[in-house]
C-alpha cells in the first residue's frame, strides 16, 4: 500500500486579486508530487514553493480535509471537485493523475457566487436560502420526547440521504445553468420526509425557491450534472420531490 510514486505536473491556476479585479490563469510547474498526496496537499506544496520565491500563494478555502465541511472546492479541468465520483477536492488523491498532466484549476463560477480571491468564492447565498425556510420553527425547551413521534426507518434513511449535503456548491458550479436546485432540494426533501417539517412545508418550498431565484441562480433544465458532480452523491430524485412540494404549495398554499 501507499506506493509512493511521484509525478510532475503543470498547473494553470486562476489568479484573481479580489471580486472586482479581472482574473487570469497563471502557469506553474510542480515536480516530484507524491501520488499519496491529496489535491489540497498538492496545493500546499505549490504554496510553500510560491512563498519561498516571494510570490503570493494561491488562496483556496478548506478546513476539515475529510470531505464533510464543504469548504473546499475548485473546478479541475472543467469538473468541480475533479474527476473522481463522490469525492470532494480534499479527498481527491494525486494518484488519479499522470505525470505530465496539465491541470486547469478554476474557482466555482456562478453569478450568485462571487470570487473573493483566486479559488475562494462567496457562497453566503446558500445561507440566505436556508434562512428563507430551511428549518423547523422550534425553540429550545419545549420539545416532546424524541420517541414520541415514530418515523419509519425508510423515511429516516431517505431524509438522511438528502441531509448529507455539505453545502459545497459544486452542484451550482457543475450545472450548465448555475442552478442551485440540488442544494435546495436536499433541505426541502429532508424536511418533507420527516413529520417535524410538515407544518411549514408549503411556505418552506415557496420561500426557498423564491429566494433561490432572487439570488440569481439559474433555472434547472434537468441536466443531471449536479448529481454527477456532488461529492455526497445527492440524487436528483430530491429535485423531483422539491418539484412536487412546490406544486402542492403553489396550488394550495396561502
Amino acid at each position, binding site marked *: 500500500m501507499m506506493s509512493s510514486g511521484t509525478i510532475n505536473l503543470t498547473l494553470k491556476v486562476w489568479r484573481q486579486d479580489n471580486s472586482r479585479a479581472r482574473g487570469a490563469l497563471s502557469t506553474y510547474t510542480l515536480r516530484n508530487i507524491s501520488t499519496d498526496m491529496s489535491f489540497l496537499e498538492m496545493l*500546499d506544496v505549490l504554496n510553500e514553493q510560491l512563498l*519561498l520565491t516571494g510570490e503570493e500563494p494561491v488562496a483556496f478555502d478548506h*478546513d*476539515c480535509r475529510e470531505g464533510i*465541511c464543504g469548504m473546499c472546492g475548485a473546478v479541475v479541468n472543467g469538473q468541480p471537485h475533479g474527476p473522481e465520483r463522490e469525492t470532494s477536492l480534499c479527498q481527491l488523491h494525486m494518484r488519479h493523475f499522470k505525470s505530465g498532466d496539465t491541470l486547469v484549476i478554476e474557482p466555482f463560477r456562478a453569478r450568485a457566487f462571487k470570487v*473573493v480571491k483566486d479559488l475562494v468564492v462567496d457562497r453566503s447565498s446558500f*445561507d440566505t436560502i436556508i*434562512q428563507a425556510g430551511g428549518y423547523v420553527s422550534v425553540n429550545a425547551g419545549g420539545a416532546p420526547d424524541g420517541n414520541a413521534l415514530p418515523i*419509519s426507518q425508510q423515511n429516516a434513511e431517505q431524509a438522511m440521504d438528502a441531509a448529507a449535503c455539505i453545502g459545497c456548491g459544486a452542484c451550482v458550479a457543475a450545472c450548465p445553468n448555475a442552478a442551485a436546485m440540488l442544494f435546495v432540494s436536499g433541505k426541502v426533501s429532508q424536511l418533507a420526509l420527516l413529520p417535524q417539517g410538515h407544518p411549514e412545508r408549503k411556505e418552506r418550498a415557496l420561500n426557498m425557491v423564491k429566494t433561490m431565484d432572487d439570488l440569481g441562480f439559474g433555472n434547472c433544465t434537468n441536466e443531471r450534472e449536479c448529481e454527477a458532480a456532488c461529492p455526497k452523491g445527492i440524487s436528483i430524485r430530491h429535485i423531483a420531490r422539491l418539484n412536487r412540494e412546490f406544486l402542492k404549495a403553489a396550488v394550495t398554499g396561502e
Partner: protein
Amino acid sequence: MILDAKIPAGNLAEKWERHCFSSKLVNPANKRKYKIIVVGSGLAGASAAATLAELGYNVHCLTIHDSPRRAHSIAAQGGINAAKNYQNDGDSVFRLFYDTIKGGDFRSREANVYRLAQLSNNIIDQCVAQGVPFAREYGGQLANRSFGGAQVSRTFYARGQTGQQLLLGAYSSLSRQVKLGKVTMMPRREMLDLVVEEGRARGIVVRNLISGEIECHGGHAVVLATGGYGNAFYLSTNAMASNVTAAFRAYKRGACFANPCYVQIHPTCIPVHGDYQSKLTLMSESLRNDGRVWVPKKTGDSRPPEQIPESERDYYLEQKYPSFGNLVPRDVASRNAKEQCDQGKGAGETGLAVYLDFTEAIKRDGEATIIRKYGNLFQMYEKITASNPMHTPMMIYPAVHYTMGGLWVDYNLMSNIPGLFVLGEANFSDHGANRLGASALMQGLADGYFVIPSTIGGYLAGCSHDDVDTGTDSFQSTRQEADGSLKKLLGLNGKRTVDDFHKELGKLLWDHCGMARHKDGLEQALARIPEIRGEFWDNAYVSGSGTEFNQTLEKAGRVADFLEFAELMVHDALQRQESCGCHLREESQTKEHEALRDDENYSYVSAWQYQGDAKPLLHKEPLSFENVELTSRSYK
C-alpha cells in the same frame, strides 16, 4: 485570586434545578437591550446564539468560516450520548454521570457532570424536533449503539455523520433567528482580542478576513465557543482552522486557562504518510470491535503484512490485556501502539503504524457481514490509502483528537473575567482528564441550548443595558494592540514558512507532551519552545498585506499563539506528576507499567493565570467527590 466554582448547594440531583430557580432573571422587555457577542458557531456557539436569540437577546455571532455550517463540529462521526434508557439496559442519568466522571479519571466536577447527564435527554428531544435524521429502528424508534467501551447502548447517531447533522440542526435554528432579525451573523471574522473594561468583558476586536479591516464589537457579555487547541500539535484530527487564538488572547487578558495539558489521543487514525501531510483522518473506533491489532515480532520486519506468518505476529493488546484485548480504552491503545513503534516494530514505510487486521472476523462472520458493518469506513480508508482492508490489514496510528483543557469556568460557564462565558471544547468543564466517546457533542449542545440561556441572565440582570461604547480608550487601545501585532507579523520577511515552524512545534509537543511524558522531555521542550518562537520572529516569512484576504497572515497569527501557548501546556504537564486520564507520566506507573493516578496530591483543576513574560501563576481548584468513589482503572 480564589477561583470560586459557584457550585450550588444541595443534593446532586437537585442542584441544577435549584440553581435555575435561584438565579436572577432579566425582565423580558429588557432582553433585547442586552447585546451578547457569541464567538464561534460550532455546536456550542450556534446553539447558544440561536437559543439566546429565541429568549429575546440581541445576539451578534462571529465565525472564522464563510458559514456557520462549516465549524469543526461538522466532522464528528460517532454519535452523541444520552441517558434515555430507550434500550432498557439499565441506563440512567446517574450511570451516564458516573461513566463520564470515571472516564475523566476523576478530574472533573461532580456537579457539572451530573448536570450534563441530566440535560443529555433534552438535547436528543430538541434535535429530533429540529428534524435531525437520527438512525431509527424498523418500528420507527430511535436507534442506539454502544460506543467507546460503554456497557450500555446510549449513543444516538446519524450514520457516520452525527456531528454534521447536529450542527446543521443548530445552524438551522440559528438561520431562523437570523431571518427574524434577532441574530446578526458575521462570518469570516477572526477574533483577535478581548476587550476588558473595569474588570468586565465588554467586547472583542476582530479582523474582517475579506477586507482586512479591524473591527470593534461591544456587548454586555461575550460568549466564547471557539473550540479546542489540538492543532498546537500541527497534525491532528482537527480541522485546519481550529486554533487557540481566541482563548489564548482571553487568557492574556486575565482569564485563567485550566488543565492545558489534558489532550486526548485517538488510537485509530490513518497514519502519517509523508512530511507534506496536513492533517490526520480519524477512523471510527468501532473498528476495534472486530479488528485485531498486531505488529511484527521482529524489529524492522519490512515484509508486506500478508507474508508475515501467524507465528511471527505480536497481538500485543490481546497478550497484555487478556480480558479487554483490542477493546482497551483509547489512551491504553494509543500508548501501546506508540510503544511498539518506538521499539522499531512499527509497520509501513514510516514505521509509525500498527496493523488492524480483519482476516479473522471475515473468516468468522463472512465478507458480507463485515462489509455491511464497516463498508463505508473501508471505502474512506481506501480512498486515502488506495488499499483495501478486506484484503490487506489496515494500518493505524494514534493522533491528537480532542482537548479537555480550556478556559476555566464556574458552574455558570463564566470565566474569572465577569461577562466572559466559555462554552464547548473551549472550556475545560466536564471531561476531566479524558473524554468519553460521544460526550463532546453532548457537552457542546448542553452548554449552548440549556446551560448558558439559564445562567447568562444571572450576570446580565446585574448589568446596565446602556449601549456599549466602542469608542472608549480600552476598545481603542486593544484595537491598536491587535493592529500592532498584525503589522509585526506582516513585517516578517525571513526565509522559513509559517507552516514550517508549526510543524517543528507540533513534532516537539508530540514527542514530549503527548501520550507519555517525562520530566526530562518536558524540560527539554520547555527550553526549546522559546527558541523556536525566537526563530519564528526572526526568520518567518509572511506574504501579502493586511488589507486583503490573506490566508498566510491568518495562519501566522494562529501559529504565533500556538508558539506561546505550547509553553503553558508544557508547564501544566510538568507540574502534574501523576498519570491520569489520557496520559502516562512515566515517573508515575505501577509495576506492570500501568498509569498510576495520585488522588492525594493531584485531585485538583490546575488553572493558570497569565503573568506577562514571567512564568504563569498556578491556581488550584480542589475537586471533591461526595457521590462517587474514586476507583482506579484496570484492564488486565
